[in-house]
């Protein structure tokens, strides 16, 4: 690893002109990447990590101004390239893997054509055995039965296979650099593990990989070098293992601490303040536990910190105070009677081919009052269909659902309507579940039962917002103007309004940044304690389930394969499938976070 870097970036800045002035999306970023190395750029949404990747591909967009002191790739200065030269470089020397494989593949073209095009565009196609070339590439990208798959259309492939087809087309021209922007984000854990292995194999084969990710566990698994980016600034960079084991910047430390772990005892996640970055001084100062007047006044310059490391912080050497955690005062009361009883529920759908597909297969479980039951499984396992049956949005073909011992899955909606308020839903995308014309006040107010004056209703809504840690200044805002975390809180406030016994949470935190996720999880734990509400918690993220739930039910192909106490199931899974799921979860070695105690802290300004 002594040869010159393949990619050398110094002082990269990207600005966007917007109606409200210039947004500095990326500021003075330095990167350096050698062949056979993986560099991860990590950050929360809006941190500028994807903009960085696109700038390196010449795809920053027409509204962007890109500047750099150095931008060289394979010894070429990229700063002076024309659009045509960029096109020749992209795909040929730099491969690009996007997050969303379904939208980046042409739905009307066979997968093989997509891969073949990458060869043809760069004049690498061998007319006589193009098919063999494509099949070879698909096989290399880990696509099983490539000779069958290359004739199929994207919609006929699963998410994991689509991602692999995309990788196959990205590596078709043998680029020396692969830029992967959140390559595993929408995938199930087992598939995620396979795609990561595939990328790992490319790195070993000598390809340089620039990985863009928000997921520290994925980064830990793949990256040699890590750059942590916040508000467009690289706040810390260095070798992956050293950086993840002993983070120097408070932001890195907060990010790591907020990741819910699958192993070990359930620990209370620390609650980090969230909010927009500061305009002057250190951008992280408003959220930082160590921030002082100096941090707020001047931006910290990058300083060396150990071998190969650099950090932008005045306090990198200081002892960090333990972040406040949402320590449970008392464990939630779980009563013995079942609020929801699912008894032998089956739901089948007719597939377009005319055959029947069993989405939910003879599923039975009880949700006890005040309990949190996790429902885990991969996409297509029937989790969400089960949730819809529990919510009585769809009727089961066989079996029944009881609510407080009374028939709930009855055919007539009229017999159910008055009891609807007892089960509420919080789903993954809160914004779409709000009427776009409504203000926060009306969204939540509609869920407050009974007739009352507008003023009284407004007061009740303000009370509910306070319960979920929101200021009543948001009452007159529209949900579209809120941040992701705030929207999910509004959704929770609405779900709480009719004082339900059960809240069905369908992937409630999977669209959120880890620090915001930690806050919402703490909020859910508090609501359980205070409101005594039971949760049916659906998630593909086992760490989150470990954090929130008392019991867990594992689903595969529509059937329950294992049910039991969360700690027991995760420690010693009985079903082979559960063990497989657990083994596939990427882990970070975060010894320092699990060892420390969770003292009581001042929770001011936190949920």
């Amino acid at each position, binding site marked *: 690893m002594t040869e010159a870097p393949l990619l050398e970036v110094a002082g990269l800045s990207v600005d966007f*002109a917007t109606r409200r002035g210039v947004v500095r999306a990326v500021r003075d970023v330095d990167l350096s990447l050698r062949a056979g190395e993986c560099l991860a750029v990590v950050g929360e949404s809006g941190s500028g990590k994807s903009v960085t990747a696109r700038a390196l591909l010449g*795809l920053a967009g*027409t509204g*962007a101004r890109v500047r750099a002191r150095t931008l060289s790739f394979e010894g070429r200065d990229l700063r002076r390239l024309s*659009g045509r030269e960029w096109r020749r470089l992209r795909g040929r020397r730099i491969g690009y893997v996007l997050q969303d494989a379904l939208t980046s593949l042409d739905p009307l073209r066979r997968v093989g054509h997509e891969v073949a095009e990458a060869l043809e565009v760069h004049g690498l196609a061998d007319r006589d055995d193009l098919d063999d070339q494509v099949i070879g590439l698909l096989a290399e990208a880990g696509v099983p039965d490539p000779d069958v798959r290359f004739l199929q259309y994207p919609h006929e492939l699963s998410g994991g296979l689509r991602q692999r087809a995309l990788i196959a087309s990205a590596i078709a021209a043998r680029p020396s650099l692969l830029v992967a922007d959140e390559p595993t984000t929408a995938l199930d854990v087992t598939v995620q593990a396979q795609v990561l292995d595939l990328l790992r194999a490319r790195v070993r084969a000598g390809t340089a990989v620039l990985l863009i990710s928000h997921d520290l566990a994925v980064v830990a698994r793949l990256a040699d070098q890590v750059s942590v980016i916040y508000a467009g600034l690289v706040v810390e960079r260095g070798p992956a293992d050293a950086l993840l084991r002993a983070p120097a910047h408070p932001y890195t430390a907060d990010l790591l601490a907020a990741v819910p772990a699958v192993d070990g005892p359930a620990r209370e996640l620390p609650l980090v303040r969230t909010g927009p970055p500061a305009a002057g001084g250190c951008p992280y100062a408003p959220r930082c536990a160590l921030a002082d007047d100096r941090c707020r006044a001047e931006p910290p310059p990058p300083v060396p910190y150990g071998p190969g490391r650099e950090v932008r912080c005045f306090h990198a050497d200081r002892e960090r105070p333990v972040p406040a955690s949402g320590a449970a005062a008392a464990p939630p009361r779980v009563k013995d009677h079942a609020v929801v009883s699912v008894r032998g529920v089956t739901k089948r759908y007719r597939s377009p081919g005319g055959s029947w597909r069993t989405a939910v297969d003879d599923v039975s479980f009880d949700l006890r009052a005040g309990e949190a039951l996790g429902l885990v499984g991969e996409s297509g396992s029937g989790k969400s269909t089960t949730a819809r049956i529990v919510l009585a949005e769809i009727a089961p073909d066989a079996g029944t659902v009881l609510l407080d011992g009374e028939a709930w899955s009855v055919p007539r909606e009229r017999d159910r309507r008055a009891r609807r308020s007892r089960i509420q839903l919080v789903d993954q995308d809160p914004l779409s579940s709000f009427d776009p014309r409504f203000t926060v006040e009306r969204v939540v107010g509609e869920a407050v039962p009974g007739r009352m004056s507008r003023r009284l209703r407004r007061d009740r809504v303000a009370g509910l917002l306070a319960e979920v840690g929101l200021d009543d200044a948001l009452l007159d805002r529209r949900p579209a103007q809120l941040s992701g975390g705030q929207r999910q809180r509004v959704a929770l406030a609405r779900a709480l309004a009719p004082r339900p016994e059960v809240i069905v949470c369908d992937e409630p935190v999977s669209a959120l940044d880890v620090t915001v996720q930690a806050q919402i999880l703490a909020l859910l734990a508090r609501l359980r304690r205070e409101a005594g509400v039971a949760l049916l918690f659906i998630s593909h993220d086992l760490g989150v389930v470990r954090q929130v739930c008392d019991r867990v039910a594992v689903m595969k192909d529509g059937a329950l394969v294992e049910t039991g106490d969360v700690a027991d199931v995760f420690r010693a899974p009985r079903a082979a499938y559960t063990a497989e799921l657990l083994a596939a979860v990427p882990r970070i070695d975060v010894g320092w976070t699990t060892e420390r105690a969770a003292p009581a802290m001042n929770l001011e300004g936190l949920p």
Partner: protein
Amino acid sequence: MTAPASYGPAALPRLRVGAAQAGVALAAAFFALVCLAALAPGLFAHGPDQVNPALALRDPMPGHPLGTDQLGRDVLARLVFGARPSLLVGVGSTLLAGLAGSAWGLLAALGGRLVGEAAMRLADVLLSFPAILMALLVVAVLGPGTRNAVLAITVALAPGFARVVRAQALVVRGSAYVRAAVNLGLTPGRILLRHIAPNVVAPLLILATINVGTALIAGASLCFLGLGPQPPAPEWGAMLAQARDYLDASWTLALFPGAAITLTVMSATVVGRALQARYEGREAG
């Protein structure tokens, strides 16, 4: 997307300030003026029916800035007073078509499979005739006159509205916020009134603005054929028809009512499209 990235201290690309905005403002102002003329023609001119045979078929002159017609009536006054019947046909029929089409579309979307299918096939059949032909058919049955012209254009336009409303209602009915409302235990009637109808109507208002142009042209066409308001009522289409007989003597006589129709239709369409762009932009954001 493939524009080359700029490097080095270059100027930020300037935001495209909508050059069309001036045009939209102009169109809105003109449309507002026409509406004002329709509401209070007395503000602008007097005596649309004042006959003066001595001054027949004059070109524009002091006192008669747009000239006079074959009976010596002031063209400007007739244009101003013609705004009301012209707009009445255009706007009135659009409003009626919007209302009828909304009910029709909502019924098709929410009224069950059989009702929905029947309602939409009927719309397909009606839409397969050109609007003006449809309107002529209705007038042929009902007879000429302002009210019947309005009804005729309503019948011609309503199926278009029904189609849009049905599509939008289906989208809204499947939306997560209607799902949330069902989960709160709201009754179907309340969900329809509080969530579905308002969210369907917002894009409809824009469609209606654009449709005013179509309706105005259809109305003017009916009147041109003598099937609208009967003489001596001033109406732009009818004025145009009368001017046709005197083209040899005074070509300006046809010019002004034609320009009035064209400009009004254009301004209504421009305003409608601008509203649509704005609404869709908000949706995307």
